């Protein structure tokens, strides 16, 4: 059952990821954003299969909820049309494809040859209390620093979106 769900979630996540970056039917940014939301949702399904329930919930709340709504707001505000078809630099596109294929090949080869294929025992259980304990004991200082990072980002965003900088 979980194996079947893994295949469904992983396949749908990869399909939606592909439609995000290279949709053959439309080049509208809104379509990309909505397919990215779907990718996040399938990824959170994969997190549930990995028994990372808290991370799955945060993925839906923060990514699919907050971040992608921000993306859609900005798309709406900028009133972006379809990406115009311009003359593509053929050499650049070919070089990019080769680079990505090379990176993918190296990663896949590393995973296949690393000898972790025998490691199928999933052992971590009951992760939410564990995560909370780790966050508020061992990682308390990084946790506080991250809250300061969020505050600084908020101040920066307010400053950047003022009409004229003084």
């Amino acid at each position, binding site marked *: 059952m979980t194996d079947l769900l893994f295949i469904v979630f992983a396949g749908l996540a990869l399909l939606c*990821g592909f439609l995000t970056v290279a949709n053959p039917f439309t080049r509208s940014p809104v379509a990309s954003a909505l397919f*990215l939301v779907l990718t996040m949702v399938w990824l959170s399904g994969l997190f549930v299969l990995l028994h990372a329930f808290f*991370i799955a919930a945060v993925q839906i709340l923060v990514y699919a909820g907050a971040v992608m709504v921000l993306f859609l707001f900005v798309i709406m505000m900028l009133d972006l049309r379809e990406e115009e078809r311009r003359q593509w630099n053929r050499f650049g596109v070919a070089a990019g494809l080769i680079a990505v294929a090379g990176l993918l090949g190296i990663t896949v080869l590393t995973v296949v040859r690393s000898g972790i*294929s025998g490691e199928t025992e999933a052992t971590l259980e009951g*992760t939410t209390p564990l995560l909370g304990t780790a966050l508020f004991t061992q990682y308390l200082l990084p946790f506080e620093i991250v809250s300061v990072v969020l505050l600084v980002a908020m101040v920066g965003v307010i400053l*950047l979106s003022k009409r004229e900088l003084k």
Partner: protein
Amino acid sequence: MHVGLEHYLLVSAALFALGLLGVILRRNLLVLYMGLELMLNAANLALVAFSRFQNNIQGQVMVFFIITVAAAEVSVGLALIVALYRKRQTAHVEDLTSLKF
């Protein structure tokens, strides 16, 4: 077939490659940013898979911090794009060449 660590890692690698492809191929600043988000999510998937199969909670702590910092990064980046659009009336990377030597 029994789903193990390497299957999750392969899915994560494929998602990362898709994100990189988006960053390289697309010319719209916002879609480029979405490619970046896809790459971050691929890394998150690999970290959570390692955390589950190595019986170590620290992978999930890392993912928690990555999600928080990514949210801050997206808000600042989108504010920059909006400010840029106000000044130059474009979100197309090929029009933004004033730093080109």
